[in-house]
């Protein structure tokens, strides 16, 4: 048998139900892996061993009684912008250095009810602002495939933890690519569900109109399992859909014959390297060989996506981060003489450089005289982007795209904020339109993992998971296994 921490959810479920392994052994194996590799990789910010071992023992009792749920006894890690009762939640910010949430996020509660085991919290770019996890106040996360490189971001810690088998699965959050891009960089599967599919209650708000919680897993099947658990309407988040949660596993192996998949010319700009293009072309060829019909389409609004995203996102997050005033939570400057100085100093001394940059940008585009020129205009472009997708999905079942323009870059390599924002060039349009998309590993580029992205129409996760599962299985022959040395 392979090391327990290397199991997928499906494999672990079978062994747990047959009582060949215990949830306690599985949990201990994951904790051991964290202990061994976290000092170098810095993927986890908090490790809640005591709680995890307690939850594991409870899970074993439930299993002994013959109970089985999808995730009973399965250990996982959660991104540190998800509130976890009793376990520190910092959002990788100095602002919330010692913050312990008084309640659980809905996604965490749903996992807890199933009997999943929370191992701890993963590192991220401060408040999820970034595409490299270099913006964490608690140190950069290293990519296990090459520790001189970034793991992507902002859910870099979650992607690394799954790639390095520190857990069976992890939760991330995706606002404009933060689950998909690190999944691409770390050779794992990252799903951004439709906006409104998963409750945002207890997820620290960044861009309220695009934020979504999504699973990071070792394969597509596991992604479907986790999604089916965390999805659904929640009275505590009025933007969640009442649409029934589908059985995402039911059609996951359905052959692709008759499926139409779009190939978008704007997703292959000149800046894309030859090898990256080859990796996407390989996915295209495989889809065709699996019986899908490839259709070429055009999405001209693609060129505006980054501009639109980097107006709307800073605008929303500058408002959302106004709550960190040093009064209700976190860092505060006690020596202030008056309330204004108190706000200025508490915020100025605790937010990191990228959070400040985005708060400034958001305040600028929302300020008097600029609101119509930037914010309102961007929202009109957003309508254009959404409409193009709607029209496309009248003709096709899915759209194929690169996840990121290149594989993982070196730590410290991208010094201009704009260069970093361009990491999201294929990722932000689906976020703005609220449609689901997934990154799965394709052929390596420059000996590094490289993902392809598939998108589908809103709430068509069942179809998206089916297509990506078939492609994932086919492409896995090209894939490599990570060898971590101690």
């Amino acid at each position, binding site marked *: 048998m392979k090391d327990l921490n290397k199991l997928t959810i499906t494999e672990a479920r079978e062994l747990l139900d047959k009582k060949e392994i215990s949830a306690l052994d599985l949990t201990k194996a994951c904790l051991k892996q964290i202990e061994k590799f976290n000092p170098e990789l810095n993927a986890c910010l908090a490790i809640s061993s005591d709680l995890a071992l307690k939850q594991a023992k409870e899970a074993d009792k439930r299993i002994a009684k013959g109970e089985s749920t999808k995730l009973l006894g399965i250990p996982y890690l959660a991104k540190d912008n998800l509130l976890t009762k009793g376990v520190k939640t910092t959002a990788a910010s100095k602002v919330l250095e010692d913050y312990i949430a*008084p309640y659980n996020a809905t996604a965490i509660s749903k996992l807890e009810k199933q009997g999943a085991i929370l191992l701890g919290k993963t590192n991220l770019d401060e408040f999820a602002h970034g595409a490299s996890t270099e913006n964490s106040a608690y140190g950069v996360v290293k990519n296990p495939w090459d520790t001189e490189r970034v793991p992507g971001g902002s859910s870099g810690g979650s992607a690394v933890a799954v790639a390095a088998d520190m857990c069976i699965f992890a939760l991330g959050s995706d606002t404009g690519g933060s689950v998909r891009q690190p999944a691409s960089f770390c050779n794992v599967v990252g799903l951004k569900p439709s906006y409104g599919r998963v409750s945002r209650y207890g997820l620290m708000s960044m861009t309220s109109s695009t934020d979504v919680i999504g699973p990071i897993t070792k394969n597509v099947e596991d992604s479907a399992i986790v999604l089916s658990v965390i999805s659904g309407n929640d009275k505590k988040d009025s*933007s969640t859909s009442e649409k029934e949660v589908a059985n995402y596993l039911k059609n996951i192996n359905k052959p692709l014959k008759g499926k139409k998949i779009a190939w978008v010319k704007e997703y292959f700009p000149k800046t894309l390297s030859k090898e990256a293009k080859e990796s996407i072309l390989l996915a295209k060829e495989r889809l065709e060989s699996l019986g899908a019909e490839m259709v070429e389409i055009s999405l001209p609004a693609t060129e505006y996506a980054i501009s639109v995203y980097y107006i709307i996102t800073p605008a929303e997050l*500058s408002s959302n981060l106004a709550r960190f005033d040093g009064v209700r939570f976190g860092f505060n400057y006690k020596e202030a003489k008056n309330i204004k100085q108190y706000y200025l100093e508490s915020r100025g001394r605790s937010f990191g450089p990228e959070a*400040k*940059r985005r708060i400034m940008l958001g305040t600028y585009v929302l*300020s008097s005289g600029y609101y119509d020129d*930037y914010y309102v*205009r961007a929202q009109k472009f957003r309508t*254009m982007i959404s409409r193009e997708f709607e029209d496309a999905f009248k003709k096709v079942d899915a759209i194929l795209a690169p996840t990121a323009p290149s594989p993982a870059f070196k730590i410290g390599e991208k010094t201009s904020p*704009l260069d970093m924002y361009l990491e999201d060039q294929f990722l932000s349009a689906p976020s703005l339109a609220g449609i689901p998309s997934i990154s799965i590993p394709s052929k390596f580029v420059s000996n590094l993992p490289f993902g392809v992205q598939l998108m589908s129409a809103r709430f068509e996760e069942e179809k998206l998971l089916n297509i990506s599962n078939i492609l994932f299985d086919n492409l896995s022959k090209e894939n490599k296994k990570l060898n971590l040395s101690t």
Partner: protein
Amino acid sequence: MKISKDTVEHIADLARLKLSAKEIEKYQEDLSAIVSYVDQLKKADLHNYLATEQISGLHNVYREDEVLELSEEEKLELLKSSPHYSEDEKQIKVKRILK
């Protein structure tokens, strides 16, 4: 488009962020570069498009206005989230706002 130093200082004040002279200089440069990039949006014709107000597809989501009672322990935990929680007065004590 180059954003002036005065504008950056004004924005920092609106955002309640105390910035150093070095930070002001850096953000003046960064914001100018980002705004110049997003200015590409100024060229297109948008008269066929209304601004997006929501992407959830939902309209007017109502629920009953119910009072959910929290336990004393839960109330205390919420209060304790604040660094200004006063144990004696069981309240959050803030700086004077009105003179």
